[in-house]
Each structure stands twice: as structure tokens, then as C-alpha cells.
């Protein structure tokens, strides 16, 4: 039975999963890295209201055009699930979520966890969608 490794992360109070094959690294957010590579606000990209004072970590992911960095609150855990455990979203939730890189979910401990595909997210980098500093974006 084929397995899939997932990294669980927390963003704006929500738990999300990312295939570990798409993850390059998770590192402490450093505002100086913005000069070389923009860190995109994942909470904003998903339309979620950020609950913490600012990003704690950067999730560095592989996307078709190279590398994309996303701000997250924290990385939680790594786990393996059977590929069959990744379920497509039901029709009422599918269309708009797919535009935000979410097409599937997995049930963990009875709760639905959305699976984020960074390669399917719109990568429109603007001043508003990047993260300035760890404590300056407390929205």
C-alpha cells in the first residue's frame, strides 16, 4: 500500500497538511530573507484571518516555477498516511478551494485536515501579500 508523508502546519489557527515531497525546509522567519526571496503570507493567500502576532516560521516549498516561501505559525508534526486516505473535497467546497491550492483532505483523529498543494496556488506577489516582519503584521 503506497504511503504519503505529510507535514502538518498551523496557519491562522487552522491545521493544514502539505506533502513532504513538496517541502524543502521549515525555518525560523527572518525578515532579512525578504531581500532575496519574498515570503508570502499564507494566511492571506488562503483568506484566513491571522490570529497570532506574526509569522513564526517560513515554509519553503517546491512549485513548478521553482521555490515559494510561505509564512506559517508553526510546523507541528510529520506523519505517513495511505494514499487512499487523501480524499477529494466534496463538490460544494471544491471549486473555490482549488484556486487556493486545496483539492483534498485527510481525516486525522476524527477531524478533517485540508491538504495544501503549493504548486496549485496562485503566486501573485505584491507588497500586500508578502510578510514584513515577525511582529508587524498582527491582523
Amino acid at each position, binding site marked *: 500500500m503506497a504511503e504519503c508523508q505529510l507535514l502538518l502546519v498551523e496557519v491562522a489557527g*487552522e491545521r493544514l497538511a502539505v506533502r513532504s515531497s513538496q517541502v524543502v525546509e521549515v525555518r525560523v522567519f527572518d525578515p532579512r530573507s525578504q531581500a532575496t526571496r519574498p515570503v508570502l503570507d499564507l494566511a492571506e493567500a*488562503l*483568506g*484566513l484571518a491571522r490570529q497570532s502576532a506574526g509569522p513564526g516560521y517560513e515554509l519553503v516549498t517546491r512549485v513548478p516555477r521553482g521555490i515559494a516561501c510561505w509564512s506559517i505559525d508553526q510546523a507541528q508534526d510529520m506523519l505517513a498516511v495511505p494514499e487512499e486516505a487523501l*480524499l*477529494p*473535497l*466534496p*463538490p*460544494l*467546497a471544491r*471549486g*473555490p*478551494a482549488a*484556486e*487556493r491550492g*486545496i483539492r483534498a*483532505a485527510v*481525516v486525522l483523529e*476524527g*477531524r*478533517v*485536515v*485540508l491538504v495544501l498543494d503549493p504548486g496549485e496556488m496562485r503566486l501573485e506577489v505584491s507588497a500586500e501579500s508578502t510578510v514584513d516582519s515577525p511582529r508587524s503584521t498582527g491582523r
Partner: protein
Amino acid sequence: MALESHSQPAVSSAELRYLAFSAGSERYALPLDRVAGVQPEGPITRVPGATALVRGVMNLRGRLLAVVDLAAVLGLPVRPPGQGHVVVVRTADLEAGLLVDHADEILAVEPGAIEPRLSTLPGERAEFLDGQVRCSLGLVGLLRLERVLEAAQHG
């Protein structure tokens, strides 16, 4: 609360059966053949980009179920999460959950007892009703399920 736990009145072959439930202070019902079950409201995961009428997705025995907030669809005050019930409904095309306060009882309705919907209902609410019946619960609106789900899909 399992659907089977509701007392089922004796019905004649001409009678239609509906599941009645509460949303806010109002009562609504769906034909029983559209209802697959009733579940306590469990953890519901918000879905980015979904309309405000879709509360999120929940785990239904290993399947994913999109949950539509009926109060939001009908323009009623929305209840805080956690204490409602989810009526699992089916159409020819899809399965979904309707978040309600609680299921009330199964109604046996004579077809002739179905009244046209009130012309005084707000327009946005009237479009979701096929009619209404009067029973021991009071006035119960008969929902047009397809219209409710269509509204949830398109916001």
C-alpha cells in the same frame, strides 16, 4: 441523535413524510426520502474560498461532507458553532449536510394539508420554500433542497 430514534407516526399510503427541524426560532422540514441521517455537530473544518453559506467540511464515517449553514442561507441569525445538528441530505447529484439547531420529529402530512408559502415572507427566504404545513410544532416551512444547495454553492 440517530434518525431512527424519532418516533414515527402511523401513516396512510397517501401521506407524505417529512423530517422537521429547527433553525433559529423557525421550523422547517424536508421529505424523509431526502434525509440520510442526523448527526450531532462535530468538528467542522473551514474551507478557504468557500461561500459564507458553507460552514466547512466534516468527517462522516470516513467520508468528507460539506456542511451548509441553513440559518445563513435563510438569512436567519447564525448560531455559534458546536451545539447544533447536521441533517445529512441527498439529491440526485450530491450528498451534503445541513447545519440546524436540532431535529424535531417526523411529520406525516396529507398532500392537501400543504399550504402555499406565505406571501409575507422575505423574498430571499420565500425562494427556498415549496410551501408550509401547520402541525403541533406550529408553522413548518417545506424546504426546496436543490435551491438551498444551489445557493450554498454560488453564495
